[in-house]
C-alpha cells in the first residue's frame, strides 16, 4: 500500500471530524460527540500508518538506514507531522479533561494545515537528502521540535480562548489584543486563500510567498484594489473588535472554565518548553557543531528559536509575578506562538527572500 492513500484517508477524516465537532457544539448530542472522536481517531491511525509507510519508502529510496530516514526533511512532511502531533495532543486533552469542545478549534487547524499543503502544492515528492541532513540528529531534533510546536499551538488556542472569556470591556488592552490578533490571523488566511484561488499556482512555498502573496489584495499593482483591500481588512478588524464579545458567549456555552483554559495553557507550555529546549535548541546546537563546526552562529533560524525560547521563558517567569497571572501571561502565550510560526515558516519563507541565499549550501 502506498502512503498517499492513507494520507488522503486521514485528511478526509479530519475534515469530517471538524464538521462533526462543530455540529456537536451546536446540538450537544452524545452520539455526535462519539462520532467526532471516532473520526479523529480514525484519521490519526491512518496518518500514523501513512507516516510509517512513507518512512519506509524514504529509507528504501534513499538507500539509508531506517533511523536516518525519518520523513521530516521538507515543509510538506513537517506540516503533516505537525498536524499529527497536534491531533495526538488534542486526543490526550479530550480524554484527560473529558471535554470535546476544543475539538471544534483544533480540527480546523489540522484541516487548514492540510488544505494549505494541497493548495500551495508543496512538493509531495520524496526528495533525496542533502548531505548536511544525513545525521542521526535529524530524527531527535526534528520530531522533538514539532512535538513542542504542537504543544505551543495548543497553548495558543487555549490562551486566546482564555482572553476571550476573561475580557469584558472594549477599551481593555487584553480585549484589543485578542481581537486584533484574531482579526489579523483571519484576514491573512482569507487573503492567502484568495491568492491561491486567483493564481492557481503550484510552486514552491517560498516562491509563492515572494511572488504571489497578497498580490490579489494588499500588494496589488492597481492602487484601487490595494486601497479597497486595506479598507476591507481594517473593517474586518473593526467588526471583530466591535462584536468580539459575542464569541465570549459562544465559548461560555462550551463548558470550559477560565481556570481550565489557564491550566491547559500552562501545562502545554510546561511540556513544550523543556522539549523545545532539549530537542530544538540543544540538539540543534550539537548537530550544527558536528556538521558545520559551530554550535551557535546567530543565523536567523537559530536566533528565532532563541526569541521563541525567551518569550516562553517570559511566560513561565511572568506567572510568578503578582498581578501578572491570568490575562497578561495569556497575552505572552499568544505572542509566543506567533514567534513559533515565524521560526518554523517565516524564516524560510520571508527572510530567505530578503537574504536570497544562493549557491551550494
Amino acid at each position, binding site marked *: 500500500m502506498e502512503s498517499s492513500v492513507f494520507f488522503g484517508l486521514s485528511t478526509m477524516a479530519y475534515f469530517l471530524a471538524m464538521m462533526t465537532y462543530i455540529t456537536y457544539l451546536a446540538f450537544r448530542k452524545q452520539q455526535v460527540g462519539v462520532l467526532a472522536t471516532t473520526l479523529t481517531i480514525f484519521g490519526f491511525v491512518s496518518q500514523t500508518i501513512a507516516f510509517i509507510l512513507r518512512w519506509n519508502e524514504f529509507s528504501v529510496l534513499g538507500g539509508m538506514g531506517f533511523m536516518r530516514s525519518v520523513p521530516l526533511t521538507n515543509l510538506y512532511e513537517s506540516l503533516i507531522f505537525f498536524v499529527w502531533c497536534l491531533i495526538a495532543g488534542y486526543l490526550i486533552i479530550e480524554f484527560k479533561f473529558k471535554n470535546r469542545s476544543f475539538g471544534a478549534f483544533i480540527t480546523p487547524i489540522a484541516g487548514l494545515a492540510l488544505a494549505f499543503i494541497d493548495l500551495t502544492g508543496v512538493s509531495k515528492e520524496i526528495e*533525496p*537528502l*542533502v*548531505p*548536511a541532513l*544525513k*545525521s542521526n540528529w535529524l530524527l531527535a531534533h526534528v520530531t522533538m521540535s514539532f512535538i513542542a510546536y504542537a504543544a505551543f499551538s495548543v497553548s495558543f488556542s487555549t490562551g486566546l480562548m482564555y482572553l476571550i472569556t476573561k475580557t469584558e470591556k472594549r477599551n481593555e488592552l487584553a480585549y484589543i489584543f485578542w481581537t486584533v490578533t484574531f482579526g489579523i490571523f483571519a484576514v491573512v488566511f482569507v487573503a492567502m486563500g484568495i491568492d491561491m484561488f486567483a493564481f492557481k499556482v503550484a510552486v514552491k512555498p517560498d516562491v509563492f510567498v515572494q511572488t504571489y502573496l497578497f498580490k490579489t489584495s494588499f500588494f496589488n499593482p492597481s492602487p484601487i484594489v490595494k486601497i479597497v483591500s486595506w479598507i476591507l481588512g481594517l473593517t474586518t478588524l473593526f467588526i471583530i473588535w466591535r462584536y468580539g464579545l459575542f464569541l465570549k458567549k459562544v465559548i461560555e456555552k462550551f463548558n470550559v472554565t477560565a481556570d481550565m483554559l489557564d491550566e491547559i495553557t500552562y501545562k502545554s507550555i*510546561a*511540556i513544550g*518548553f*523543556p522539549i523545545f*529546549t*532539549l530537542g530544538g535548541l*540543544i540538539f540543534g*546546537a*550539537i*548537530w550544527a*557543531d*558536528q*556538521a*558545520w*563546526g*559551530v*554550535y*551557535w552562529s*546567530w543565523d*536567523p533560524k537559530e*536566533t*528565532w528559536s*532563541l*526569541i521563541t525560547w*525567551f*518569550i516562553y*521563558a*517570559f511566560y513561565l*517567569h*511572568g506567572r*510568578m*509575578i503578582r498581578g501578572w497571572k491570568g490575562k497578561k501571561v495569556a497575552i505572552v502565550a499568544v505572542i509566543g506562538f506567533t*514567534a513559533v510560526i515565524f521560526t518554523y515558516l517565516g*524564516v524560510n519563507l520571508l*527572510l530567505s527572500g*530578503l*537574504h536570497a541565499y544562493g549557491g*551550494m*549550501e
Partner: protein
Amino acid sequence: MEQEKNMTFVDRIWKFFASVKLAIVIFALIASTSIVGTILDQKAEPAKNIQILTKLFGESLAPSLYNIFDKLGFMDMYHSWWFTSLLGLFALNLIICSADRLPRIWKLVREPLGPLTEDNLKKFPMNREFIVKGKPDTVKDSVTDALKSTRFRFAEIKEENGYQLYAQKGNYSRLGVYITHLSILIILIGAVIGIRFGFKGYLNLPEGDVSHVAFSGKDKALPLGFEIRCDNFDVEFYGASDMPKEYKSWLTIIKNGKEVLRKSIVVNDPLTYEGITFYQSSFGLVPDGLNRGIFIFNVAPAKGQNSTINLRFGDTFQIPGSSVSGKIVNFSPALKIDENGSASTYANHMDNPAVLIDFFDAGKYKYTGWILKRHPQTWQLPDGNRVEFHNYWGVEYTGLQVRKDPGVWIVYLGCIAMSIGLFIAFFLSHRKIWVKLVEEKNNTRVIIGATANKNRTAFERKIDGSISILNKKQEGEK
C-alpha cells in the same frame, strides 16, 4: 514600606538585580532586539543591507536608516557592545537572583517534616476526613498498606489518642530551577572560553596540496601547529541528477614531516587533531586547474590487458596493443549537449566532467568524441577499445571549516545540566502528606492533608484511590 525605606543602597541594588521583573524585562529586550539581526544580514557588505532596507522602507529612507543602524552596531549586532552587555546583565541577574533565593529554598529542601495539628491539616487545599472501624493501632497498618501505591516512606509518632504519619517526596525537585539557571551560566562560560581561546577559520585545500595554516576573515593566517594534506576529494550524486548525495575528502595530518593520521571526512563526520577540528563544508574548482590536473584513465583495448594511465591536458596516449592513439583537446567540468549537438559548460562545479579526445589510427585522424566520467556508455569507442574516465585529480579543492574551541565541552556539560534541570523543574513535584489517626468511640477518625507544588490533581487522584481501597477493604471485613 518601612522596611524599604531602611534598605541600604547595596540592598536596593541587590534587590533590583534579584527581581523576576528585571529578568522578564531582559528576556523581552533580548528577544525584541534579536529580531533586527535576523532581518539585516550580519557582517555583510553595506550594499546588501541597503538593498534589504530599500525593500522594506523604500529608496528614500534606506541610506539614512542604514547609517542609524550601522552607528548602533546592528550590522554585527550579536557582537556589539550593547548586546554583549545585555547578555552580561542576563548572567548577572541569573547569579544574583539564584543567590538570593537559593539559601531559602535549600533550607526548605533540607528541612525535615514534622507533625502538624488537626487544624493545620484541614487548611490544606487537599484534605480528606473519614471514619474507619477499629482502633488506631490496627487502622494504622491498613492505612499505610492502602497508601503503598503512593510510595511514601512514612515517619510516625504516637500522639495523645492516636498516631500521626507523615512523609515527603521529591523535595529536591525544588532545585531543578536553580540547576537550569546554573546550566545557562555554564553555557555562557563555555562560550566565552571558546571565543577567548579558540578560533574559527576556513581552508580551501586543493587535491594534493599541503597547508600548515587555516584562514580567518580577510585571509588572516592561523597557524595550525601541524600540516594537513588533501589526498583526494570526490562527490557522489543521486542517480543521474546533479544533487550531491555525499562529498568526501581524504585527509592526511603530517606532524614534523611524519604522517600521523589519515581519515576521510564527510559532512556530519569531521576530523579532529590536537584540538583542531576540520569539517567538510564546501568544494569547488581550482582556478588554474588545467595546468595542474591529472586525468586518470583506465584503457581497455579490444584485445589485451587493461592499464591505468595518468595524463595532463594536451597529452597524447596510446591504447596498448593497438595502433590507436588519443589526444586530450578539451575539458568541461559540467558538460551539456543541447538538441543541436553543440556542447557547453553549465556549472562551475564538477557536476558532469567530460574530456574531449581526438583519436588517431597510425597517426591518421579518425574521430573526436566526448568521454564523460558519469556516463560509462560514452567510454566505448567505435573500434572496440574502451577509454574509462575515472578521475580528474588536482582540479578541485575541498572547502574545510577549521575550528578550535576548548570551551565546547563546557557548553555540552551545560546542555546536559540544563536537560536535567528542566526535567526536574517541570516533571518532578514536591509532595507532602500527613495522616492523622484519632481514636473516637472504638473507631478511628482519619484526617489526611497533602500538598504538591505540581500536578496536584494527579496526586489528589492517587490519594482518593488509596482511600477507596481502604473503604473497600472495610466493607469486605464487615
